[in-house]
């Protein structure tokens, strides 16, 4: 009996998975790059007096994971911190004018 088409597709998919290169684990250099980008954005947010608590927590989590040698987690946390810091900078920038919309007149 010939294998059915769906079974052939599953086999092809499994073969492709086996041949696909595995995602590379993050190393210390990756962490340092991600952390310094996050730290720079965080410092800018702080200088605008718009720092978020969650940015500080994510930065601390990144450092803790790196200290424990878990660079995958450290890079993920640093990237999250950078995204949060950039969002807070955007907030600070837009609110320079946007606050007036809420004012009681």
């Amino acid at each position, binding site marked *: 009996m010939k294998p059915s088409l769906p079974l052939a597709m599953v086999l092809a998919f499994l073969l492709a998975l086996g041949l696909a290169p595995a995602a590379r684990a993050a190393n210390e250099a990756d962490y340092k790059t991600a952390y310094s980008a996050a730290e720079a954005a965080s410092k800018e947010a702080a200088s605008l007096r*718009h720092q978020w*608590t*969650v940015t500080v927590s994510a930065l601390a989590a990144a450092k803790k994971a790196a200290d424990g040698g878990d660079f995958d987690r450290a890079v993920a946390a640093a990237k999250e911190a950078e995204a949060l810091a950039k969002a807070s900078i955007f907030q600070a920038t837009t609110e320079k004018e*946007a606050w007036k919309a809420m004012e*009681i007149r």
Partner: protein
Amino acid sequence: MKARASILLGSLSAALVAFALTSPRVVAADKVDPVADARAFQNFFFQKFPTVKHEDFVNGPYSMNEDMKRQWQEKEEFPPYEFALDAGKEMFATPFKNGKTYADCFPNGGIGIRQNYPYFDDKEGKVVTLELALNRCREANGEAPYSYVKDEMASLTAYMAFTSRGKPMDIKIPDDPRALAAFENGKRYFYTRRGQMNFSCASCHVQSPGERIRAEILAPALGILNAMPIYRSEWSGMGTTSRRFVTCNSQTRAVPLEPQADEYRDVEYFLSYVANGLPISGPGARP
């Protein structure tokens, strides 16, 4: 030819009149006008809550909810801030090591003056709050300053507020560009969204007073500082105005500023000024 000249002259005159009529409004909108701001601020709350007596706004969430008000009135028979009040009275009367007391630092010996704070100090060019003035008094007399967010400061301000109970808030804004800038800066801080929650002070205390946020009923911004300092059941203790600002910021997931930062001093100036005429009710008690 003559008709064309007349039309041209007429159009020019009309344009000039239109410009003259509209331009002062543009200037007025950009001008810092604390009197107009306070009037608009108070009218907003008076119209939003027409059944609330004006002097009741200083009682925060209790002015918004009858059940809570009844519970609070019963609690006021043995108020939770009483220990702080007694401690503050004793601290206020106890001399510093150099023999002087707090009374030496304040007009009228510090009694019945809460309604005049914060004020604008023209020598420093900045707003001075009561908490700041108390710590400056301590330092001037060789004593270490107190934490702005802990019990000693709350006790002292509780006693001073108590001696002013019922007196109308009476904040002055001198005709000094620095004072007007401080007022405007405080207003900006009040309305500016911050933190991951993207909340401003106004998001809760202008847009949603009387509404619930989790288990709490939000207080109106009008008169919110007249009740300071407060005993909060949530804190299991007393809290100063500084503590209130710091925790509000934290709750929106914004990193709080240092207590008595310029922005906090200015927002206290703004909120106190727009509550002018409403009575001091501190120390207060809140859930």
